[in-house]
């Protein structure tokens, strides 16, 4: 009997030896699957259990997990080792601007005088915070040549909405009720049409397939499709440089035509990194633009936010933009409310915006300074063009360069005759993960099949870019030699291999529950 028990125990031990992984590759279960600790990982002051004055009974068992502090630390540190990040390596994600995130920005955002202040404190107790916001507003105005800035929007898409709502408000104030249509090129981010609709507008798409750019001819056709003077056009949403990585060469004429028709030019600021410190959007006809502080101004992406999407607008649109805006008055800085700015569209979110991100962005701006910011744009553009120059003989480049801060290629040359031979954009992306890179943006923009959008940013050295180019050329060479099978299997060395995404959508399991499959 004793011997049997020993064998049984040894079997269990073997299983548990493997269950947390090997080497430095750890498996980790969910918090709810851990043995419950008798006490939580916080030591709080004791309760006195005085009678409740909530008007209701105390809540019963919630079912939350409970472990000790070292277990919590280990849990999240192990999870973190399953992530790729900009601090690991090259992250050429097109239209996302994954540049270096300086740590001083993190340190400064945590100063008690900035982290522990409340948005409703009397203004005289937060003058430093208001001055910081005021300076950031001014610097953004200077960099865009759009004089009025509202820092409130919480992310890029939220900035888009704020920008388009500003346009809508302006049209309402002018009595332009017939303006119901927004023109958007087909290369636009999905947020653009989604935003226009959230704003109550209809979307009219302009094709840019031919040349990768907007043309005056195509624009005119769209502008006058339902009214010869474009009287029903509220505005256009254009990303410039666009998502094919190209500057819109006819933008001045297009902006003029739009303005003649009484429409406003909203510019998506996702690609501002190609322009910062060098070119001002207000000088090529833009009326409203959002800026992604988490792209151009280095605030960390954090695995999906928080972002920050201030908007910059013309003098004409300034009265309609959201509140609050910081102004300088006698005796200090003041947050303008709807009472100060009655024409404003109102508030876009609670409080004043993603202030923590404002601190980080300002810290980044000051570090570069007026003399250093244009180097950002130039470095980003040179790096992208260098990649293009090194890939254009082995990958399909649909639109001729030079590109701006990102370049677009497709998988046209790698796709085989039959389905089995196909090495697609997806395979190339997964191969990059196998070789220690984050992939580029894939299947976007939607103008052509199998697009790959590569954005190196200015903080990448030639060495790291060359290594990326090496892998990309290796893939192209192997495919040419007919060695395609390997690419369908990759990645092999990552914490997980390709996932069954169909299963996730067909049988959605969106939270832990007791009957869920365990590791």
């Amino acid at each position, binding site marked *: 009997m004793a011997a049997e028990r020993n064998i049984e125990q040894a079997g269990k031990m073997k299983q548990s030896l493997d269950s947390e992984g090997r080497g430095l590759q750890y498996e980790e279960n969910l918090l709810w699957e851990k043995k419950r600790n008798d006490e939580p990982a916080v030591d709080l002051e004791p309760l006195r259990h005085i009678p409740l004055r909530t008007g209701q009974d105390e809540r019963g068992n919630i079912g939350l997990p409970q472990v000790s502090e070292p277990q919590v630390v280990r849990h999240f540190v192990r999870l973190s080792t399953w992530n790729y990040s900009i601090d690991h390596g090259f992250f050429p994600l097109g239209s996302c601007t994954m540049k270096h995130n300086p740590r001083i920005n993190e340190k400064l955002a945590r100063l008690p005088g900035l982290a522990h202040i*409340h948005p409703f404190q009397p203004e005289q107790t937060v003058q430093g915070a208001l001055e910081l916001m005021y300076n950031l507003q001014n610097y953004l105005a200077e960099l865009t040549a759009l004089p009025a800035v509202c820092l409130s929007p919480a992310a890029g898409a939220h900035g888009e909405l704020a920008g388009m709502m500003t346009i809508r408000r302006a049209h309402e104030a002018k009595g332009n009720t017939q303006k119901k249509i927004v023109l958007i090129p087909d290369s636009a981010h999905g947020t653009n049409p989604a935003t226009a609709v959230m704003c109550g507008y209809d979307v009219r798409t302009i094709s840019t397939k031919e040349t990768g750019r907007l043309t005056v001819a195509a624009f005119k056709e769209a502008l006058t499709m339902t009214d010869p003077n474009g009287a029903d056009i509220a505005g256009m949403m254009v990303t410039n440089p666009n998502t094919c990585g190209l500057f819109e060469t006819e933008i001045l004429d297009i902006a003029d035509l739009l303005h003649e028709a009484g429409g406003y030019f909203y510019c998506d600021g996702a690609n501002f990194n190609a322009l910062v410190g060098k070119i001002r959007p207000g000088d090529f006809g833009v009326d409203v633009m959002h800026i992604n502080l988490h792209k151009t101004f280095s605030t960390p992406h954090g695995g999906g936010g928080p972002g920050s999407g201030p908007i910059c607008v013309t003098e004409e649109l300034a009265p309609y933009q959201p509140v609050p805006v910081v102004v300088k008055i006698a005796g200090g800085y003041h947050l303008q409310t709807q009472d100060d700015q009655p024409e404003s569209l109102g508030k876009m979110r609670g409080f004043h915006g993603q202030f923590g991100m404002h601190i980080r962005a300002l810290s980044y701006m000051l570090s570069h300074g007026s003399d250093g910011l244009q180097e950002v744009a130039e470095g980003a553009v040179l790096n992208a063009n260098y990649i293009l*120059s090194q890939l254009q003989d082995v990958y399909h480049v649909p639109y001729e360069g030079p590109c701006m801060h990102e370049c677009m290629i497709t998988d046209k040359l790698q796709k085989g005759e039959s389905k089995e031979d196909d090495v697609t954009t997806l395979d190339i992306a997964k191969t990059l993960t196998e070789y220690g890179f984050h992939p580029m943006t894939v299947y976007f923009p939607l103008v052509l099949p199998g697009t790959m959008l590569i954005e190196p940013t200015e903080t990448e050295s030639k060495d790291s870019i060359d290594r990326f180019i090496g892998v990309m050329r290796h893939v192209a060479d192997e495919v040419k030699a007919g060695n395609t099978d390997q690419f369908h299997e990759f990645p092999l060395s990552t914490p*997980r291999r390709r996932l069954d995404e169909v299963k996730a959508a067909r049988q959605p399991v*969106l939270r832990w529950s007791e009957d869920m499959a365990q590791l």
Partner: protein
Amino acid sequence: MRYLPRDNKSRAEMLEAVGVKSVDELYKDVPQSAFIEGLADLPLHMGEMQVERQISGYANQNHSAIDGPFFLGAGCYFHHIPSTVDYIIQRSEFLTAYTPYQPEIAQGTLAAIFEYQTYIAQLTGQEVANASLYDGATAMVEAALMSMRLTKRNKIVLGNDIHPEYYDVLVSYSKNYDDVQIQQGGEPDDDTACVIIQSPDFFGQPHRYEQWRKYCDETGAKLVVVVTEILSLGLLQAPDMADIVCGEAQSIGLPMSFGGPHLGFFATSKENIRQMPGRLCGQTVDADGKRSFVLTLSTREQHIRREKATSNICTNQGLCALAFTVHMSLLGEDGFKHLARLNHEAACDFVDIINKVDGLSVVNDTFFNEVVIQLPVDAHDLVNGLAEKGIIAGYPLDGNRLLCAVTEMTTLKDVEEFVGALTEAIK
């Protein structure tokens, strides 16, 4: 510049490979008129020490919550954040990762989101939660918009006193549609898309939902519950009879940070998931059959559906959701409820002390950690006067009423100093 690889030899090689003499040649498509000639406002570049000095200068001009007695709440609360939270969220692998679109190399973020969704679902008594929204105000707007999609109706009834800024944001968004009606107070009818109830309400009063549930069942309206102090869910009954529960989770893991970044949460029942806004993380398996997590049901979202998306939201509050998740895991079941009750007990003491002062009385008969004090003087004047003495007294309501929050950070000494200054001020 310390963030840029400065290497003239490499630069020359790259220019040669591209086939240009200078970077300016690469900008040939840009109209000359748009080039910047000089930046007058922005100062010249600075070293790390100078940047630190300048931004510390801004910080030093502010009066922070650790500088004296602090009783401000109103949807943004001063709570303790364990050191572990900030340590974890500053790890490179979490801080500098992108949205997890490549799940093979983003399982860390995805597993944490899955845990976050589970926490929110459990706390709200709902079946599913999304991966976060910008803040409580926009979460409430998304709930109203989702109710309008689900019911194909356009009237929103505000059942009680919701946060004034949440109301402002709802009004701003509603102007985007020609026919949205916002009704303050009253009962829902057959045109009502949803009834919104905040609990505790803006004045700190907890609410029950039975009667509202009945109204909603009778009319087909959705019941939306908004929670601006998520810690209250450790003491108050779960709003499990709501159709949507949304709000602000800043209290767990995030500093007040002058109003942002905070954390909007959103939970509902499984039958509504196809109409939900925002990101969702789900479980699946990889090619080796191992349990894995992935962003899913993205056919609701803007990058797939474009103009037919449920919302335009893209980036959300990922790292804030992680901070919340880490803090919740430290608190555990017992710690979360203990902390909630500790806040309530501190508020009970505060109420007793205030009620003993001649001329002051607490309006609330019930509360969680926030109450309204009736003053004999104007609340705005009082708040400004006390600020000069280094006391942040609370949120001045119209007239003579002051909204005060008490948390585990409030000491008896803080309360005594506050009451002393208050007594002086109302003499």
